[in-house]
């Protein structure tokens, strides 16, 4: 991405640095998604999914979408894992 979007903002980050940050976060997100898929135990998977939600939130922030960052933080990192954990607790209780 060129510096077109950053130009005009009060504290413009050098485009080269921004590129590096964006590529790094993209790689982290890919690694995080793989980690979620490779985690086989559902409870652990919910926790890894929460960490992955944090990474996605970071991705949206780096790509200049703070509002989506907030949504992803609350939904991806908190709400979805909590719902999954609650459902797992309910299923497990029934199995016992």
């Amino acid at each position, binding site marked *: *991405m*060129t510096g*077109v*979007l950053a130009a005009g903002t009060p504290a413009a980050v050098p485009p080269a640095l921004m590129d590096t940050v964006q590529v790094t976060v993209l790689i982290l997100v890919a690694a995080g998604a793989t980690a979620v898929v490779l985690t086989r135990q559902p409870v652990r998977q919910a926790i890894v999914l929460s960490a992955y939600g944090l990474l996605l939130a970071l991705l949206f922030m780096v790509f200049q979408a*703070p*509002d989506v*960052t*907030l*949504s992803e*933080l*609350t*939904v991806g990192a*908190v*709400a979805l894992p*909590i*719902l999954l954990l*609650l*459902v797992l*607790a*309910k299923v497990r*209780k*029934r199995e*016992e």
Partner: protein
Amino acid sequence: MSPAARRWAFLIAGSGLVAFYLWGLTGLPGFGDYPGPYGTIINQVAVTQTKATAVVSAINFEYRGIDTVGEEFILFVAAAGVSTVLRHLRGERDRAGIDEAMGRDVPPTSDAVRMMALAFTGPTVVIGWYLASHAQTSPSGGFQGGLVLATAFILLYLAGQFLVFRRVSPVAVTDAVEAAGAGGFACIELSAVALGLPYLSNILPLGNTPGAVDSSGTIALISFFVGVEVAAAFTAIVAELLWCSAWRPR
């Protein structure tokens, strides 16, 4: 189907998908390149038209407000559905609840978790309230703020026990608050119609300074009601699931 046949079916379908996907990728615009006129136009006119410096809020609650109505009621209906399926009705018998968790003690919450949860509850409420009620500045948003507020209730559950959670978010209250949020939104939409204006028109004074507390008219108000609705709806969903899965006295 034999394993070998399944593998072949997957390989053929998979290679077709990959080819199609790669072909689609070649047609995409360049990275960071925005081809459409819509965003550029909105960026130029939004702040002057709506007096909201958060263009995302202006789009959500003004330009495509009708989509937000739909989204809002998806969550409303989802919460109602969860309640319908899971909630115990008065007079309904609990099926053989005695031995389900026999011999399994409820692990006590550690002091560290309790303290962290308590320490975070206050700031979470403040942030959620700010996000939901200041839609005219960025970053903000009713949906995000509402979820942050609901998170504060979950922190209370972590800090205390399920009974405390139930006491601070009684079913009657969450239901009423959820209905008030959804109803408030509906009232704003319809009051424009009552005044003879198009549905969802911004009927309140827009203020003079973009981004100020009194600016953006109905945008901030709709966002606030969305926040109230989302907070109550999510708290209700979590409460119903907790009621099913958590320890409770007999």
